[in-house]
């Protein structure tokens, strides 16, 4: 019967089966870790969504990785998820997502960005992917401190979360995508708070 042929199981199912077998046989478990990259791919917006042009610039004076074990971004089953080695590049890439939300992030020294440019500091507190029965969840926590020559300063935590069902695989692409989705959540709220600083 065609539908039950091994071929029809698909590559994803085979991977899932192998993962299950590995979980029961540690000696043969995956010998590679999943390595995330210092990139950020924003979520896909529905076609026709008007693009938001950056209305102002926020200068990020510091980007600090406060995680206790910055090399790790999760453990899924018996496989580790490694965070990008360059957390500065990673955070810059993530903050690049503010542009689509109406904020242009700048990382250069103050004079180039302009003396009246609102300034901010970003702290990465959590970036972790965990798994449960057939799903995995990416969680991020960012702390933002920002101020402008006028206007109320910001000191807030921003959380983002994405849960996905791991039917087919826990491949690096899907893990990266989950982490990106969690960052996108956090950026949504962050941009909403930063916009009032632009008019200050």
């Amino acid at each position, binding site marked *: 019967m065609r539908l039950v042929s091994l071929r029809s199981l698909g590559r994803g*199912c085979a991977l899932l089966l192998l993962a299950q077998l590995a979980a029961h046989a540690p000696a043969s478990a995956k010998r590679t870790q999943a390595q995330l990259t210092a990139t950020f791919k924003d979520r896909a917006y529905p076609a026709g969504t008007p693009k938001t042009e950056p209305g102002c610039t926020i200068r990020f004076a510091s980007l600090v990785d406060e995680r206790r074990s910055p090399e790790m971004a999760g453990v899924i089953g018996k496989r580790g998820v490694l965070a990008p080695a360059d957390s500065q590049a990673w955070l810059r890439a993530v903050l690049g997502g503010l542009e689509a939300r109406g904020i242009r992030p700048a990382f250069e020294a103050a004079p180039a960005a302009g003396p009246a440019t609102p300034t901010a500091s970003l702290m990465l507190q959590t970036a972790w992917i965990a798994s449960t029965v057939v799903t995995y969840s990416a969680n991020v926590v960012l702390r933002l401190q920002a101020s402008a020559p006028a206007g109320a300063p910001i000191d807030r935590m921003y959380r983002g979360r994405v849960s996905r069902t791991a039917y087919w695989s826990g491949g690096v692409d899907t893990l990266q995508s989950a982490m990106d989705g969690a960052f996108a959540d956090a950026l949504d709220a962050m941009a909403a708070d930063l916009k009032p600083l632009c008019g200050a």
Partner: protein
Amino acid sequence: MKALLNLGLCLVLVAAPLGSAAIAAPKNVVEEPARTVAGGRAVQVLVAQAEIKSDINPSNIAVISGGGLLGGLLSAAQNASRTKKAETAIEPLRTALTGFDADALALETTKTALAETAWMQPAATGFSKDSSLLGKSTQLDAATAAQIAFIEYSYDVSPDFSSIRVVAKVEFANKAVPAASAAKPESRLSPKNLAYAQSATSIITLPTPGADLDANAAMWAADGGKAARAAIAQGFAEVGKLLPRTLALTAEDIKTMSAKDKKKGVAGGFSGRIQESTGAQTLLWSGAFIDVRPVS
């Protein structure tokens, strides 16, 4: 449709029980001669999470329906739905626990627990969030001691959020790769090659749980997560008391605790033979210690 059929078939295959005969049980007591290791024993504290975790009761639809395509599909959908619900409900609690340093608690608990066990004085103590097989194998490679005692802590909320659970899993793994599997250094961590494997669990319950997980989550999260912070700290402290008892167990102790004259009971969602029961506190033995008590 074809994709759905494939998915169902896939899930049924994956859910099929794998033979357990090939998996040898690791040693669950540290016999006297094994307490001292030539070359020394290092301790590696592991906390492979960044925040408190959620948990779900896995769907049993596939079992009830006798397996099959539909059962597999429904089971996967139910698990995904439960996870989503639990991850949403836990958010206020995670927010309330921002800044809570469970990693430091794990290190402190280890230090306190091991101070009670004279033979378990580590040559060095490290910390890592990498509890993956390869991560632990790499840690073994880097060790200067002949053996590492991995003490992996985890903390989560029960599926109905009525309790917070802290678990310490202890594994002794030798640095030397068994000759039979020289090409697979990770085999040092397979159950048959571990020198020791045990766990201790503390379950801290809400004194009067609410009707559902949202109500319970709100109770844990109230007042900046005051109850949750207390429960996690209490859970680690209780695990810290159970660890020396666990490490000191002999085969005779386990036989006594597992004997039929010890009544069976259920507490905190776990079943086992009751070892102690004083008021609201219960200590079960179910192949490992499980202590259940309300948050104080």
